[in-house]
């Protein structure tokens, strides 16, 4: 604590003391114990959050990078293992009947080998082994051990052991009750050091990637601009004292608050080519002669998902723009009135320049989030009819084509695009302290 008091001992004389008091507030050099304690407390309070965010954001991101270099499919998520079934064949009915214990084993993977496959089992009481034990098994007392060594992908084997059934077994014995143990290790494709660039080669293969990127940019750019323009228009409508303003404000937020899944399905039904109300309405009004397949036809599908993005996100832009409009000072408008500015001039020369900050921030944020959007398109078109954006492509590659590695590679590409946008965003937002 002493370092906050500049001079502790040797009180100087009158004039000196005055000078010292004026020049006094010298900030302590370095960090004092108080500051250190505060920082410790701060990190302590942040630790749980940091930890959990690292676990669920940073680790998965690293994992995505790792997987994107791995030849891994959906089926590889379960490591290869030996699957076994055990049963007693021969339907013994009386003591002394002959039977066979049968073990059937197979490698669950068609192409990966498993090393050191070993089966150990204890024969149940009441069964006498009645012949030689087949290779590669050995029997010691009632303990059966079979060492298969290394087995290839797609390997199958059957071990049959002839036995004579005793009375003890017929009284309720069960071969499967003896819990056979299987051991064996296999390479897990996720953890070994097998790397490949195939995933990226596949992603960038041909014109597909550029087409996907083009679709993504169209969707993102027009979806963002449209939402902002609609939001600005809606905010202008409500930026005045009108009756029912609160009601309208609540109403305008509906598309944003309702679950995406509910409104997306509603849109699909509304624009259905066979029984959709919009098509019926358009035909009735003579706009189109036959039904338009809005979500299933090439140019329309992309336009429709973009319109959906505008519709569901204009409320957010509206809210932000309205909040900023209502905080604009009145006096410049009064001054403009005195100077005879017309309403449109006031909007163009006064409101718009003052709103430019929030509009740019909104544009950057919405751009990034629309770029990241997955659910909307997935629910509306499933990525068909020319609407496969990058995010939908991640899902498509990983789950529809079952190639997790390729999906991760697309995810990496998305993440890199995002980093680029973020750099732009932070460069701007640090100037525009608005948000």
């Amino acid at each position, binding site marked *: 604590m002493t370092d906050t008091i500049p001079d502790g001992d040797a009180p100087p004389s009158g004039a000196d003391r005055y000078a010292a008091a004026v020049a006094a507030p010298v900030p302590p050099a370095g960090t004092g114990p108080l500051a250190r304690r505060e920082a410790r407390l*701060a990190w302590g*309070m*942040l630790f*749980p*959050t940091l930890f*959990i*965010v690292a676990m*669920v*954001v940073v680790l*998965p991101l690293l*994992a*995505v990078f790792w*997987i994107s270099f791995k030849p891994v499919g959906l089926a590889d*998520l379960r490591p290869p293992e030996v699957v076994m079934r055990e049963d007693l064949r021969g339907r013994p009915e009386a003591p002394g009947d002959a039977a066979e214990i049968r073990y059937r084993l197979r490698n669950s993977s068609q192409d990966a080998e498993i090393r050191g496959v070993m089966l150990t089992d204890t024969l149940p009481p009441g069964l006498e082994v009645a012949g030689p034990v087949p290779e590669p098994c050995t029997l010691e007392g009632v303990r059966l051990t079979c060492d298969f060594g290394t087995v290839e992908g797609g390997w199958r084997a059957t071990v049959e052991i002839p036995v004579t059934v005793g009375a003890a077994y017929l009284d309720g014995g069960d071969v499967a009750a003896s819990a056979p143990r299987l051991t064996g290790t296999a390479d897990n494709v996720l953890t070994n050091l097998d790397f490949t660039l195939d995933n990226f080669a596949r992603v960038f293969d041909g014109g597909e990637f550029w087409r996907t990127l083009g679709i993504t940019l169209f969707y993102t750019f027009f979806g963002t601009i449209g939402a902002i323009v609609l939001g600005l*228009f809606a905010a202008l*409508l409500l930026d005045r004292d009108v009756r029912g303003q609160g009601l*309208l*404000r*609540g109403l*305008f*937020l*509906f*598309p*944003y*608050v*309702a*679950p995406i*899944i*509910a*409104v997306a*399905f*509603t849109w699909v*039904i509304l624009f259905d080519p066979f029984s959709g*109300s919009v098509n019926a*309405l358009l035909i*009735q*009004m003579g706009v189109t002669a036959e039904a338009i397949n809005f979500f299933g036809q090439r140019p329309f599908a992309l336009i429709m998902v973009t319109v959906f993005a505008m*519709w*569901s996100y204009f409320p*957010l832009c509206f*809210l932000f723009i309205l909040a900023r409009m209502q905080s604009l000072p009145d006096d410049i408008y009064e001054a403009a009135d005195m100077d005879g500015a*017309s*309403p449109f001039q006031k909007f163009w020369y006064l409101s718009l320049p003052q709103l430019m900050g929030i509009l740019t921030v*909104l544009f950057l944020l919405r751009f990034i*989030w629309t*770029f*990241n959007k*997955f659910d909307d398109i*997935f*629910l509306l078109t499933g990525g068909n009819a020319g609407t496969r954006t990058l*995010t939908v492509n*991640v899902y498509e590659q*990983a789950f529809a084509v079952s190639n997790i590695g390729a999906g991760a590679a697309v*995810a990496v590409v*998305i*993440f890199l695009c*995002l980093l680029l946008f*973020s750099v732009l*965003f*932070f460069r701007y937002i640090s100037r525009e302290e608005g948000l």
Partner: protein
Amino acid sequence: MGLIRRGYVAAPGIGVVWTWVIALTVAVTLAFATGGAFRPSGLWSLAWGAALGAAALHGRGPAAVAAALMAGAGIAGLGPLQTGAAAPWAAFAGHAATAGVALAGTLRMTRGLAPGALTRHEVEAALIRLLTGVGTIFFVAIVLIPFYVMVMTSLKNQAELLANPLDFSIDISRGWALFRAYGELFRDFNFGTYLWTSTYVSLLTVILTLLFSIPGAYAVARLRFRGRAAFSRSILLIYMVPMIVLALPIYIAFSMTGLRNTILGLVMIYPVTTIPVALYMLQGYFRGLPAEVEEAGLMDGLSRLQVIWKITLPLSLPALASVSLYVFMIAWNEFLLAFMLLDDPSIFTLTRGVAALDSSEVPRQNLMAGAVVATVPIMVVFLALERFMTKGLTAGSVKG
């Protein structure tokens, strides 16, 4: 610009646009309400709207006469609203509504306009009134129509829907039978359980999010430590990482650890997606609180944690309310993770349950009833607490 500044050009122009918009609005409204073949006529709107606008320049009397003539012509089939073979009462109501609203709107919008030359102010003011009217109708229509269709579809049956997709009229005499789709959802599709699952998952998410984000936000807002600026910036960065990028490794990790297909897995993931948002909103609010009160508490011998508990939190109840609401909304509406992680129909959340209804075997009124069941609770919460919601959204979160 010169031409439009003549009263005889501006007023009829406004009359035409407004009359056509009203005819379109009435046609769509009546078509959706009765299923009749209503449609607006561009040509007649042009003629009658121009007449109405011109008449409005000469006062209420002439305008009312023009509107009355317009309604009469409409009944004769020569008006802006074409009614086809619709029921007579609906047609009559349609013409009356079109003429009435067109008249009221045109009079209001052309107020202050004179037949001759006009100033720029007068024309622009009239145009703004027109845009306000048209804009309000436009926004109300685009917001309400999907929700109207959602609710009405859930009350009808597949055959009726295919017969006339526009006919959303419902037969009140059927009484409770109208809600058959809802009965089926709760009886055969387990929606009661889904509703409960969604509720407690969302509430747990809110609680966990607050537990983590309150101390974090306080530290970022109030305490001085090295790396504070970088930290508050990286919060925003995290909130920009797309969910689909994270969903893939989460899916893999959960598959391998057996957390997939469990509610526990979902409750572990949801808060993480909301903590950055909550942290960002709360730190903004905490910064705005006067530090003096807290310093007074410190001087009186409270520890930092006591200060947070006894001073900061009670002061920030409104912010906590809006953050909770917002987080609740995110968790309630979350679809992607629930869709990827849950396979077992007995532990579905509502959104996952609705997604499961999207198959050719389930009639669409059930799908729409599911959508209504998912939407209504969040809407009720939202409308009841709208004030907090709007404030909270503008306080810092823009995630969508």
